[in-house]
């Protein structure tokens, strides 16, 4: 046979370095580490709470203080906002398009609706936490 199709190898471990879009994708996927981390952090809080003593809880709070914690949470907040929250909202209209009659609701409407809902949810959480 004269045919001999050539298969270009694709690196299984570093393919995402090929272009900016793929790098952003990997950064986006890695927010899952933060999600896991904070889920466990909340769990630790629960452990402290479940002991039933104020001291334990305060110890937990104290353990969360300090400049390195500020740096960690600060970084996490920004990273999370850009690569998880905003990314998720921006992609939402693709999964859940809204069509009213003959017109598709423009994607940015759906995105904006998400931001509004997010503001409300966040305000509620802060209110619940007594922060506002």
């Amino acid at each position, binding site marked *: 046979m004269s045919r001999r199709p050539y298969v270009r190898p694709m690196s299984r471990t570093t393919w995402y370095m090929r272009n900016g879009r793929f790098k952003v994708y990997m950064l986006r996927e890695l927010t899952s580490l933060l999600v896991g981390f904070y889920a466990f952090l909340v769990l630790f809080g629960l452990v402290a709470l479940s002991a039933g003593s104020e001291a334990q809880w305060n110890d937990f709070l104290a353990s969360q203080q300090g400049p390195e914690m500020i740096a960690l949470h600060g970084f996490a907040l920004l990273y999370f906002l850009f690569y998880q929250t905003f990314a998720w909202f921006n992609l939402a209209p693709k999964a859940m398009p809204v069509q009213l009659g003959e017109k598709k609701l423009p994607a940015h409407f759906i995105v904006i609706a998400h931001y509004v809902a997010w503001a409300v949810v966040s305000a509620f*959480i802060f209110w619940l936490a007594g922060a506002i």
Partner: protein
Amino acid sequence: MTIARKALVWGLFAAGGTLTSFVFPSLIALFLLIASGNTPVGLEYGQIHAFAASWMGKASLFGVIFLALWHAAHRLRVAAHDLGLRVDGLVASVLYLVAALGSALAVYYLVLI
């Protein structure tokens, strides 16, 4: 059936993604407040304990932890694959197990409160 399992896994993943996108920024912000020594009143022992003791509180805390863990586990599984770790069965078992364990612990401690 594969269809069924994947649909369930993905459904929870998507729910977790949506939930964390909405809730986690505030959650992280609260930790930031704590870190900078400005713990809000609602997180002082009495109030937070009361919240976690209520049914509503328990349910929402569990929901957040469970969905977040599930979301993280599933996404890490995909990321592991993307990074070239091609032992999907093992990776999935470990990650989902951790998520399940975390969720079970959450239930245990919530019941204790």
